[in-house]
């Protein structure tokens, strides 16, 4: 029972974070496109399309984690996104790029690299727990 409650709490917390992260970026997709472009990994046009698409994917996955509809698919996608975010951040840092991750729109622009990574790894840890769904949970 306790495992189920913890498992649900993690799912709702991560789901809520992704809904929030997606919502703040939908407001200004051009700003988010600039954040993606700052990583210098993609040309401008794919960055714009990604900036229009990713926030909606984050919101849908977040809602899926909260409601448990399409749950496994959401855990799979969000885990993949987190791994991509972490690798992109480390590569950008290694290349000497001082970029704002843009993860939570303007709210994250003052998040330094260390805290950015700590947050990312905490989320990744939570997601790995969600892969091990308790037997009592639906």
């Amino acid at each position, binding site marked *: 029972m306790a495992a189920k409650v913890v498992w649900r709490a993690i799912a709702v917390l991560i789901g809520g974070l992704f809904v929030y992260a997606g919502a703040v970026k*939908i407001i200004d*997709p*051009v700003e988010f*496109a*600039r954040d993606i*472009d*700052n990583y*210098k990994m993609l040309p*401008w*046009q794919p960055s*714009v*399309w990604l900036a*229009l*698409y990713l926030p*909606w*994917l984050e*919101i*849908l*996955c977040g809602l*899926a984690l909260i409601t448990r509809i*399409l*749950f*496994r*698919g*959401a855990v*799979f*996608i969000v885990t993949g996104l987190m791994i991509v975010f972490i690798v992109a951040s480390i590569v950008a840092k290694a290349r000497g790029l001082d970029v704002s991750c843009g993860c939570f729109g303007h709210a994250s622009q003052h998040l330094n690299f260390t805290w950015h990574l700590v947050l990312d790894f905490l989320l990744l840890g939570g997601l790995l727990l969600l892969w091990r769904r308790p037997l009592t949970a639906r």
Partner: protein
Amino acid sequence: MKPLLRQSAALLALALLPALVEAFYLRDKVPWQSRVADSQFVEVATARSWGDNALWIDARPTDEFERDHVPGAVSLNEDRWSEGLAQFMGTQWTPQKKIVVYCSAASCNLAEDVARRLREEAKLPNEIRILKGGWEAWQQK
């Protein structure tokens, strides 16, 4: 494994719908071709030819500005925006002059961010341009 892939594909496809609607809705507001329009840049030679009709803003970090900068330039970067903007407005700004913003090189985005904030937040009426190639290009000419 199959339900996992099916669910993932469903989510990926579902997200595409609102994204396409948003892309259509914002089609005139999104700079599709490039991050900054070519018309917002100015070549070093052109900017130099403006002489006293141009105000120069150095958007690089303050320590880089203190090492060296374009003669007459004012330091204005995101780290000390309010203080730098007040200093610029109080000492140099006039509405008639063009403003040239630069950062370290063609690959930096600091000048673009400062130029945008001058237009959108400070609402300066001046013609504001970004120096093509930045400080690196200035030194080579």
